[in-house]
């Protein structure tokens, strides 16, 4: 099984990296670009085939390690 986890900064948490990217893009002439936020995407290979169980496990991984819930939120995607 393949899973994809998105870890992004919570709204309201400053994202200097995203800001810099937006700035640089505007500077490169991409005026249409407004706010930019950068996050992480983590692709995992999972043994087993039980989607439900995988979801619970992934949630645990996020809470324990993959995301710092003080500043970050996460989304889980199974494919």
């Amino acid at each position, binding site marked *: 099984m393949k899973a994809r986890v998105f870890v992004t900064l919570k709204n309201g948490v*400053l994202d200097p990296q995203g800001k810099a990217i937006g700035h640089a893009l505007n500077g490169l002439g991409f005026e249409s670009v407004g706010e930019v936020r950068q996050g992480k995407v983590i692709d995992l290979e999972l043994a087993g085939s039980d989607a439900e169980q995988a979801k619970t496990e992934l949630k645990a991984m996020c809470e324990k*390690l993959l995301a710092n819930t003080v*500043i970050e939120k996460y989304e889980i995607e199974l494919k």
Partner: protein
Amino acid sequence: MKSAVVVFPASNCDRDAKVALTQMTGKAPHMVWHQDSELPDVDLVVLPGGFSYGDYLRCGAMASQSAVMKSVKAHADKGGMVLGICNGFQVLTESHMLPGALMRNAALKFVCRPVGLEVEETQSGFTRHYEKGQRVTFPVAHGEGSYFADEETLNRLEGENRVAFRYAEGENPNGSARNIAGILSEKRNVLGLMPHPERVVDEVLGGTDGRKLFQSLIEAIS
């Protein structure tokens, strides 16, 4: 004073901490491997600077999960002193022993330079030898030292006089909220700070402002 320095994979200021402790306390600290679940019987545990686990994923995230951290938490719960320097501070926030988080420097660059600090809180076992408001200079060397916490947490920290060190006016090297450089735990026995006091205990290296921190600890503990 009996002390221990925890060594994570790719800690790299563990030797510096050891040298400073030995010089200041006259006793060499125990060096504790991250996989040891037992701590030796000590008064102070130091989480040193460095790049534990390469700073991969998030600085301090993987180290906070290591076996030894359970005993470090227990040590702190029993009122034992814990000092987290730089990466050690990051490990402390990642293991929720201190509130908030340390984020990428606002300028998005690693920064190594001596910075001016103000000792804001002297009612602690780490700072009692400094004067309130005293200006000291410690070097910083980090890429992710921008202290973040929500307004409520920041207010509580200030309300409870738990901001031990602040970057002096115009010296904030990383965009930390309210110029916060180092904070204390609720029970004031855990200190995390980004600047490196252990790099300023030796005249030849251009400064001794860090000595008082260790002297405070010695007095507090004896």
